[in-house]
């Protein structure tokens, strides 16, 4: 399973992602500069967190036109895996690879904290090591993570099982208090129709070792590695 970690000007979680894949998972990984126009040879593209292009205009708005994004879209079209984390999720929405948008947090505060995530769909290449309803502790770190989509899109996401993670209490209950940013339906992560592109605001790469306060994030990365066959079977 070869990972490619995309680096835009202003990306800040690229080294965290690289570390988690390389040192913790022992999987091959390379950085991909945003000017690169070809991502062939990679199985999974990671769009990490940060502030690509300074978040100017809107989060992810400029990044969606970076040369590498054409290649990432082509990779997704071929059925390759793409995971966008935090700013990566924002970029995927701006680029139209995922529906909806990430608005300013309801509180207007930048939220850097641990959250509980409930696994809503364990039948994806990103969650195959998890079970439905399983709760993970994963940190967030963002100012614009308030997921919004119109009613029809939201219904479609829910009906087709494409809401992958939801913010919840430690016992799995979905409550307004557990929602750190005002996201509709407590949505923390969604995937595309085909199931090979995932976007999530929380940072699994920052909790892959007990030394960092928790290692639940490892379950997502290990799912990607073990779910390689799932991806290959995608239509």
């Amino acid at each position: 399973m070869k990972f490619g970690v995309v680096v835009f000007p202003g990306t800040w979680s690229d080294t965290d992602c690289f570390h988690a894949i390389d040192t913790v998972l022992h999987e091959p990984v390379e950085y991909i500069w945003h000017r690169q126009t070809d991502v062939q040879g990679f199985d999974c593209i990671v769009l990490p967190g940060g502030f690509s292009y300074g978040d100017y205009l809107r989060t992810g708005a400029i990044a969606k036109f970076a040369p590498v994004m054409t290649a990432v879209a082509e990779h997704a079209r071929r059925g390759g895996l793409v995971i966008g984390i935090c700013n990566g999720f924002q970029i995927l929405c701006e680029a139209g690879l995922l529906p909806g948008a990430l608005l300013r947090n309801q509180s207007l505060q930048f939220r850097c904290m641990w959250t509980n995530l409930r696994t809503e769909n364990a039948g994806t290449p990103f969650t195959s090591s998890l079970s439905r309803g399983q709760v993970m502790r994963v940190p967030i770190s963002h100012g614009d993570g308030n997921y919004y989509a119109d009613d029809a899109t939201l219904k479609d996401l829910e009906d087709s099982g494409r809401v992958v993670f939801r913010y919840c209490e430690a016992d799995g209950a979905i409550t307004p208090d557990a929602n750190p940013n005002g996201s509709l339906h407590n949505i923390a992560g969604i995937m595309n129709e085909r199931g090979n592109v995932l976007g999530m605001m929380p940072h699994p790469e920052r909790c892959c070792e007990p030394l960092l306060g928790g290692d639940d994030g490892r379950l997502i990365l290990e799912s990607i590695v073990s779910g390689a066959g799932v991806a290959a079977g995608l239509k």
Partner: protein
Amino acid sequence: MFLAKIYVTLKPAVNDPQGITVRGGLHNLGFTGVTEVRVGKYMEVRLDTTDEADAIRQADEMSRKLLSNPVIEDYRFDLTPA
């Protein structure tokens, strides 16, 4: 040359926590009659073209493709010779 004054606003259905917070500030300042505030963006774009139809086409396309996100925002623009 044309000057496009481009206004980007949140769609009516989209919640605007910034606007709500600004409204609270205005209330604190004594503007108790303020019922709603919506915060948007304003951009001035100078276009090097003499053809008004071309300027309109460019302003519209750039607003749609980059300056606004059609999922959450609407846009409008005024065009003046500059």
